């Protein structure tokens, strides 16, 4: 009955007839931040600018923590300036060399990226269906543990043993994720709350199980598991390099998630319910079932990431908290990748590169590896606040392709 913009919150308003660039809609934050349904241009532009912004702020952090150069400012500002620049240059050079500068660096990047990609896909699938799965961590623990159990309790040749262990991890993760979906479908419990809580349950349940006879390594009293059979350990792709077939699994998962979301019938339901649950219900979709299915798929991908952590690297054992922070970094990854599987792949490679390069940076440039975490966090802050990035780079409206201008300077 009205044109939108006449009221801050139009109910049945005709959104198309009146673009309203003056009023960013904060309610659509999750949709904006996750980038579901955004155009390719926007999907690429904001993450790229976020990365650039993060690197600039990272440089400032390096500059202000460079004590030696700071001391020079009073006596020799010129030297101080060039010394600071050298510091920043060395740090970023080391970061680059450590992630892409050699065959070892590249394989280390791929190695670090593997679990990140898988867990990132898990979170992205949730985002696409409108669910915020914070439980990738718990699903990794459960999936990894089941995969490991198959890895040491079953005797089979590699060609059977590895797929079997992977299947176990998928099932374990799917069950743990599906549980949160079931709680949402049956009782309306919000998945953010349930997945966070299920993380704790998974973490401590794994600790408990690791001290039981089923899992605990012989002759040990601490929570550490038996070692996976060599037939279940993921073979490396090249001799002397750590990257293993898990990376190929991750690539396959990227393709599978793409196919699932954009080509399969169930993926259409996922996306429809994610974009508009009322619309999904009206169209005859079983929204409750979709929630369970999405969380199961999401959990299975996280389970794969978990398997990667026990079957893909030394010591091929599960220990307390073996999944690390990957399940949480996955949220950042999914945001950075705009919830698109290919985006997640590249985001995973970027974060993998930062991991691998961070160690080099610490070794050769003396910059603590923690800077990498700061960079990651900054990227996410910028991704989550696209308006901020647009303001910094003076982009009027990214949707309005033709008129967008990207100034070359930083906040000039």
């Amino acid at each position, binding site marked *: 009955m009205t044109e939108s913009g006449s009221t801050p919150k139009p109910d049945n308003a*005709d959104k198309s007839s009146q673009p309203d660039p003056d009023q960013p809609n904060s309610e659509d934050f999750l949709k904006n931040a996750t980038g579901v349904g955004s155009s390719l241009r926007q999907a690429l532009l904001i993450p790229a600018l976020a990365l650039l912004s993060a690197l600039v702020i990272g440089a400032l952090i390096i500059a202000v923590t460079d004590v030696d150069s700071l001391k020079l400012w009073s006596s020799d500002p010129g030297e101080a300036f060039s010394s600071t620049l050298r510091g920043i240059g060395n740090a970023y050079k080391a970061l680059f060399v450590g992630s892409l500068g050699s065959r070892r660096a590249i394989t280390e990047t791929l190695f670090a990226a593997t679990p990140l990609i898988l867990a990132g896909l898990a979170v992205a699938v949730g985002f696409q269906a409108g669910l915020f799965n914070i439980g990738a961590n718990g699903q990794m623990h459960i999936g990894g543990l089941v995969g490991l159990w198959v890895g040491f309790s079953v005797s089979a040749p590699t060609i059977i043993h590895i797929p079997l262990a992977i299947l176990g991890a998928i099932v374990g993760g799917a069950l743990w994720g599906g549980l949160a979906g079931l709680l949402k479908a049956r009782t309306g419990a919000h998945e953010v709350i349930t997945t966070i809580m299920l993380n704790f349950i998974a973490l401590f349940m794994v600790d408990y199980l690791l001290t039981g006879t089923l899992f605990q390594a012989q002759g040990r009293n601490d929570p550490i598991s038996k070692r996976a059979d060599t037939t279940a350990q993921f073979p490396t792709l090249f001799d002397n390099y750590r990257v293993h077939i898990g990376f190929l699994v991750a690539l396959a998962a990227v393709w599978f998630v793409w196919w699932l979301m954009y080509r*399969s019938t169930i993926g259409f339901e996922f996306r429809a319910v994610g974009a*508009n649950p009322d619309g999904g219900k009206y169209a005859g979709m079983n929204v409750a079932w979709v929630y369970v299915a999405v969380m199961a798929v999401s959990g299975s991908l996280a389970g794969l990431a978990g398997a990667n952590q026990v079957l893909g690297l030394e010591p091929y054992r599960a220990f307390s908290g073996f999944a690390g922070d990957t399940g949480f970094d996955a949220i950042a990854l999914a945001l950075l990748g705009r919830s698109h599987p290919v985006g997640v792949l590249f985001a995973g490679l970027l974060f993998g590169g930062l991991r691998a390069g961070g160690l080099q940076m610490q070794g050769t440039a003396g910059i603590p590896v923690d800077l990498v975490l700061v960079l990651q966090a900054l990227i996410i802050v910028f991704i989550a606040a696209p308006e901020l990035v647009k303001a910094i780079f003076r982009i009027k409206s990214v949707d309005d392709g033709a008129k967008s201008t990207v100034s070359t300077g930083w906040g000039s």
Partner: protein
Amino acid sequence: MELALSGITKQFPGVLANDDVNLEVSGGEILALLGENGAGKSTLMNILYGLYTPTAGEIRIDGTARQFDGPGDAIEAGIGMVHQHFMLVPVFTVAENVMLGNEPTKRFGWLDLQRARKTVREISSRYNLDVDPDAIIEDLPVGLQQRVEIIKVLARQANVLVFDEPTSVLTPTEVVGFVEIMNGLKADGKAIIFISHKLTESLELADRIVIMRRGRTVAEVTPANMDEEKLAELMVGRPVDLVVNKTPAKPGEVVLSVENLVVLDDRDKRMVDGVSFEVAAGEIVGIAGVQGNGQTEIVEAITGLRPSLGGYVKLKGEDITTASARSIHKRNVAHVPEDRQRSGLVLPFSVTENIVLDSYYEEPISNGVRMDWPAAQEQATRLVEQYDVRTPGIDVAVSTLSGGNQQKVIVAREFDRDVTFVVASQPTRGIDVGSIEYIHSQIVGERDQGAAVLIVSSELEEIMALSDRIIVMFEGRIAGEFDSSATRTEIGLAMLGSRPEEITS
């Protein structure tokens, strides 16, 4: 008191919402701003209210140019706005709402509620706006809530009052009361601008009518030498057929029968309380009533979206009371939902994806596992053509289409089958006249092909124009049944819950 907008231009990225618009209004005058959705009326009013900054042009009050950087400046300058969706805090009292944003205080910042109450009483007695200052907003009917909005504006000494679609939420009787209020304000020397897309009320209420189309003012007329047809032509830009052309109904066998239906809403309130009616093949039955009297819940219960507490819904004799939405859809039931953006469409999805939104799981679109996108695109291309959906392409997001074209996407999707029963809620809400014409003709077309049709609308004109039989809902019950010869007054009274016998007495 003179307000003049001159040369107002507002450029949004890609859209010229206002293009050199001129508008004048003086005290003691009622000006109707008429135009279709998207014509730029609201943009213009938002500029006047300081919500947008115009790209070019100026606002003059009594000859002085003014610049508004926000609603605060506009209020200061004596401009008041009554929005279509009221800006009231539901759990606050009338007095609290009126003082909100402009709270009178005693010493040490204590709220002076007493003074606020007094202000409300003074204004309500002066303008005949009878409202209890201590009533809680959410307990008040919509008509009274609107009065509170008016009092709020008057309490801030507004001299120019802007009403955005003021009658769209009111019952016919409330409209009568509203007209009196408007005339009282006019007599007091206030300048009034009301935004509307309704022809009749513009003719009845206004001293002058300014018509906007595509961001420009295309005509300025006085009601005296105007009629609805001419007005519609100016508004749309071409001759418009205002009457729905249809032949008398030839009802066949009963298709839908509803018996003693009881439905609760989400808060377990009995919204439908023992309703029975039938719809036969080849007839259009209209459900009239002020919104919120159970119409929404009836439709949801019939289409399987909401469980019913008691009673039966039968489709061609088959009990579908507990059937799922999908199984009802499979029985060739077409459903045009009341809110296309909330439930009828998935806005970020493409036209194609929306076209297959309820057939995506079956042949030929899917083999159960895999989507056949080429087949879906073929179907979308065909329907876009057949149902005259104006879109740059089938791959653009449906959110970029106009309201009328969005509604056509839904109609195309729902009617492109051998439909036995059509249920359409608010089928033409908020869409342009051209699309209204088209959708009405499609609905009549379905009837003529032998479908049973149930229409729900809060626009009485629409119900009267389309229906062969009219049912009036009031507080969850049927308050009257009429044939198509019933008068506006009879139906209007039933909408307020008066029984037919009370009308005659």
